[in-house]
C-alpha cells in the first residue's frame, strides 16, 4: 500500500532533480566616449562594444548619466549610443546597464576625467575695436601647443562695406558681418582660420555631428559662437537661427568656404558663400614649442 506513494514521491523527486540544465550568463558591458569629454559639451557615449555571451542574443541599454546611482536617466533602448551634455567639470562617473534577452543585466560604472587648460586675455591688436582671445594649452611629450582663438566675433567701425547691428548689445554679441575680402586681411598677427583650422576646432568640439552645439554652448572654455545670420544681396537673414563664419579657404574666384552652425541642429558644416556675402569672423593663431 505504501509502495505507490513511495513511487510517486520518487518520480516527483527524479523529475525535479533532472529538470533542464540552466545556463546562467549575463552580457559583457563596455562603453566609452566617442570623443574626449569636456564639461557642458555634448558627447556621444558608445556601448556598441558590449556583447552577449550567447549567440544570436540581443541587448538593451540604459544609462545613469549623472552617476548618482539613484535612477536611470534613460529608458531601456536598443540603441547603444546616447548623447549627453557632459555634466562634470573635472571628473565623475557615468553608469550603464546592459540587459540580454533572458533579462540578465550587467552594470558598469566608469569614471571620466576632463581637463581643458585655457586662459582668456585681451591682446594688443591693430584693429580699432579689440577682442578677447581664449588660449588653449596642450602639452605633449615632445612639444607644447598653444592655440589662440578670438573669444568674440570681430567688430569693425561702421562702414558701408559691411554690416553692423544697430544696438550695441547686438554688436557686442554678433560682431560685424563682413565680406570675405575684408575678413581675409583683417589683422597682421591673427589669421582667418582655414577650413583645416576650423576642422581641428570641430574635432576638439566632439566632431561634426555635435560641434554645432558645442561651439555655441555658454561655457567659459568654449568659443561661444553666436548666430548673427548672414547678409546676402543686402538683406539680413537667419538672425538668431544661423551663424556663418568665414574660413580662409577660397572655393573659387568668387566664393569661399564658411562654417555654418544653427540653432536647430547640433551639426557644424562647411558651406560655400559668395565672397560678397557678409558673414561673421573669428581669428586665430597657434604656436608650437618643441622641447
Amino acid at each position, binding site marked *: 500500500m505504501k509502495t505507490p506513494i513511495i513511487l510517486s514521491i520518487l518520480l516527483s523527486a527524479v523529475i525535479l*532533480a533532472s529538470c533542464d540544465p540552466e545556463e546562467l*550568463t549575463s*552580457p559583457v558591458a563596455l562603453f566609452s566616449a566617442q570623443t574626449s569629454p569636456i564639461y557642458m559639451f555634448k558627447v556621444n557615449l558608445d556601448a556598441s562594444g558590449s556583447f552577449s555571451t550567447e549567440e544570436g542574443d540581443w541587448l538593451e541599454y540604459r544609462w545613469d548619466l549623472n552617476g548618482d546611482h539613484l535612477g536611470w536617466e534613460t529608458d531601456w533602448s536598443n540603441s547603444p549610443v546616447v548623447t549627453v551634455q557632459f555634466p562634470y567639470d573635472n571628473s565623475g562617473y557615468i553608469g550603464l546597464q546592459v540587459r540580454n534577452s533572458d533579462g540578465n543585466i550587467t552594470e558598469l560604472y566608469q569614471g571620466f576625467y576632463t581637463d581643458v587648460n585655457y586662459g582668456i586675455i585681451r591682446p594688443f591688436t591693430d584693429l580699432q575695436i579689440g577682442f578677447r582671445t581664449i588660449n588653449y594649452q596642450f602639452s605633449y611629450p615632445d612639444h607644447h601647443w598653444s592655440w589662440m582663438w578670438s573669444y568674440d566675433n570681430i567688430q569693425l567701425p561702421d562702414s558701408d562695406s559691411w554690416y553692423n547691428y544697430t544696438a550695441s548689445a547686438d554688436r557686442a554679441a554678433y560682431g560685424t558681418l563682413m565680406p570675405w575680402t575684408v575678413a581675409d586681411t583683417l589683422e597682421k598677427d591673427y589669421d582667418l582660420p582655414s577650413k583645416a583650422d576650423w576642422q581641428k576646432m570641430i574635432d576638439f568640439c566632439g566632431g561634426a555631428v555635435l560641434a554645432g552645439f558645442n561651439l555655441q554652448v555658454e561655457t567659459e572654455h568654449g568659443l561661444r559662437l553666436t548666430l548673427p545670420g548672414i547678409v546676402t544681396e543686402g538683406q539680413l537673414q537667419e538672425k538668431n537661427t544661423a551663424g556663418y563664419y568665414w574660413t580662409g579657404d577660397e572655393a573659387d574666384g568668387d566664393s569661399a568656404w564658411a562654417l555654418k552652425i544653427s540653432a536647430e541642429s547640433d551639426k557644424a558644416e562647411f558651406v560655400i558663400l559668395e565672397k560678397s556675402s557678409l558673414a561673421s569672423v573669428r581669428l586665430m593663431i597657434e604656436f608650437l614649442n618643441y622641447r
Partner: protein
Amino acid sequence: MILLAGGGIIWSQANGSLNFSGSYIYMPQYRMSGAGYTISLQHSLKPWLRLEIGGSYTLGSRTIRRNETVNGVKLLDLNYHHAAYSLYAAPVVTAGNGGAVSLDVYAGPVITWQSNVFDLNRYEMPESPDYIGRMTNIVYLNRVLEGTFFGGIAGCRVNVRTGENWRVNFGISTTGIIKAVSSVNASIGIRYCR
C-alpha cells in the same frame, strides 16, 4: 525541531538503527558536483516497514573554463558554489529483511537550507582611453540563491550484513527541491542496528 525530536524518540526505541553515509552529489540543473554526508535513524514499525529521519550536509561546485578573449575582452572562468543542510523524514520499505542482503526503498519530504552562488559573468575589460577611469578593470557579477526550501527525497539502498549489528550499504537517491537546487546522490554508508 520536530525532526530532531522525532529522531530522539526513534533512537530511544529498542528496535532502531543508526546510519552514517558519505555521498557523491551531482546537481544536474547547474551541473555542479560535490560531496556530503548523511546521518539517519530508523525505527522499525513492521519487519518490512521502517520510519527514517535523517540530516545531511552537502557541498558542491562547478568551474566553467573560458579563458578566451572576445573583442578585446578577456572572459574569465565562472564558478558556481553550493552548500546545503537538509533534514528529511521517510517511510522505508524493506525487502529481504533478516537476510544477508536487503533492499531499502524510501521517499519522503525534505526541508533544506541552501546557499548557492552562481557567477553570471566575470571579465577583464580592454585598456581604456586616458579620459576614462574605470572603477575596476574586472567586472564581476553573480546571482545568490539562498534560503530555506522544501522538496522531496526518494532513493534506495542495498544493505549487506557484515556483523551481528553492523551493515554496510550502497545507495542512490534523488532530492528534488522546489525553487532551488536539486541533486542526485550516490552513497556508501555503515549502519549500526540495535
